[in-house]
């Protein structure tokens, strides 16, 4: 049984059946990619996993617990962190503050009324944040205002913020969308390194075949709201059904 189990999930928006009979099992400590052409339902599926949407049918279980009906913050507290398509960071705050907030959330829970202590004097949190910044190669940027950084750095920061919580599952939504080739390769290397060094499961939704085949150990192809095939990358590359539905039009 995988760490993330999606069973018979369906979601309908008015006349559009966005997801139908989706079954997906993400095994622990793998990098699992979900690919598919535009409109295949990738983002809808992701939103069902993080609490933004509630599916009409089916179940989603993380580590044996249902995530359905829980708010995004509760799901995060269960151990799932999410990286967005456009980097979502706290632009008005410094890089260091950005990195400390998720660690606070992990340590003190979803709400703690600490209005007196000095935020920058929590040693354990400072140290943990410093460590992740180092890992992300961003120590020299710690006092920068986050919104003033390049897109690639914002992406690194966002991934770092998610990692700082030591999540069991990291969800990435097209993490290289709109990036230059060099930034894309950096992100791939970073994710590979994370997957190798950490005790973490990564699920990634991606459009870019180059990214998917460099990273994933397992790939699920989604088309018209339903999984077409699930297999290792080498098998997916040559699969006739996949070619027909997807690779035929956008193969690199």
């Amino acid at each position, binding site marked *: 049984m995988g760490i993330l189990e999606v069973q018979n999930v369906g979601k309908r928006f008015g006349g559009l059946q966005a997801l139908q009979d989706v079954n997906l099992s993400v095994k622990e400590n793998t990098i699992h990619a979900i690919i598919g052409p535009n409109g295949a339902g990738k983002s809808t599926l992701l939103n069902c996993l993080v609490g933004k949407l509630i599916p009409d049918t089916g179940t989603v279980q993380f580590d044996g617990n249902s995530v359905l009906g829980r708010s995004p*913050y509760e799901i*995060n507290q269960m151990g799932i962190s999410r990286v967005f398509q456009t980097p*979502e960071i706290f*632009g008005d705050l410094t890089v260091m503050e950005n990195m400390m907030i998720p660690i606070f*959330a992990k340590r*003190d829970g979803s709400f703690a009324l600490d*209005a*007196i202590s000095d935020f920058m004097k929590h040693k354990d949190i400072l140290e943990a944040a410093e460590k992740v910044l180092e890992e992300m190669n961003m120590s020299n940027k710690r006092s920068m205002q986050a919104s003033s950084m390049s897109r690639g750095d914002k992406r690194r920061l966002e991934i770092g913020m998610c990692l700082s919580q030591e999540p069991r599952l990291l969800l990435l939504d097209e993490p290289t969308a709109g990036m230059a080739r060099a930034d894309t390769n950096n992100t791939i290397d970073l994710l590979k390194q994370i997957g190798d060094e950490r005790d973490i499961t990564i699920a990634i939704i991606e459009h870019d075949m180059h990214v998917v085949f460099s990273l994933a150990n397992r790939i699920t192809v989604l088309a018209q709201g339903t999984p077409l095939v699930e297999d290792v990358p080498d098998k997916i590359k040559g699969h006739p059904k996949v070619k027909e539905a997807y690779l035929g039009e956008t193969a690199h």
Partner: protein
Amino acid sequence: MMLGLNRKDASLLLIVAILVALAPIFLNPFPEQSGLAQFNAGYPDLMQRFVIFGIFAIGFNILFGLTGYLSFGHAAFLGAGSYAGVWMLKLLTINVIPAIIISTAVAGIFALIIGFISLRRSGIYFSILTLAFAQMSFALAASVLTPITGGETGLQTALDDPRILDGTNTTGNIPAPSIFGLQMGDSFQISVGGWLWTFNVGYYLSAIVMLSAFYLAIRIFRSPFGIMLRAIKSNQQRLNYTGLNTKPYMLACFVISGMYAGLAGGLMVSMDPLAGAERMQWTASGEVVLMTILGGVGTLIGPVLGAGLIKYFENIFSKINDNLLHKWFAFMPDGVEDFIVSIIYPFVGKGWHLTLGLIFMAVIIFLPGGLVELGQKVASIFKKKGSTPSNNPNTEPAE
């Protein structure tokens, strides 16, 4: 490290404390008999207003400055605090301490209810909801709730009030609010040369409360709670996906902000034991928004400066009448004098709102950071002159 503050915050607090302590002296820069004496602001009534509205604006800024949620109904908490305060003075004791405490608590409960409902929405809808609640409170206070609020005449202390702790006293004058025997209106005057300085009990009590409120605001700004509020302003979605529940953070912030307003209301009635419904009106809510924006949204000292500026205009600038203008420009030939006076007249006296409006527009357009930004700009000009740029890489904030 002083009082758990970093050096910069500690020196800010110290400067504010010194200015507030010496305000009776430097707010009276002109000798009593001089023609400019009417620009002196160092009289108790006005100084009390400076610090009390300072508290109101500091509290408002904790909500608006940190989270970006613009409440258009904060006067409701000022009013609720005022009524609660007068009732304490009537029922319990003429000592102002219980009145101030209960005012703060009542406003907090009131804010909890209004906040719980209003915070279901954000942005303009939140503002409209708070405005609606405040206007409802105003309407209720002015009419239906007359037995509690005194309706349009307002609520005030009376000779035959029960005052349980003081014992009934139905002879002589209505007792004045006091703190352990010292009346709020008591003053001690010093005359040096042509100058007259008034040191007033009510002012110093309000000043001490304001400094405590200011100190607490600094702590809140620097605390994990304060950072989470700034994170809400910056990116609420990211915060939700980072495992933090923004709802209790917002509600706690709203309640704290409402309690500051209630505290200000309690102090107001301690200085002058009269509370009227107009204190809850939307114009009063708008005034605190102006104060905060004028001084500098999200800055520590800005709201206090904004409150001071507006209250100065309201009380001093508004007193310039056409007689005075004619006196000032009497040295000019008659025709020119009349011409100049007729141009300036609409902007002073009763027209002070016009000048304030122009200043407000200028601040919004040229100094979005308010008076604090103005201060920083002036300071950076002096710093540049004082030292070579290479010594001072940090004078300009990174944008």
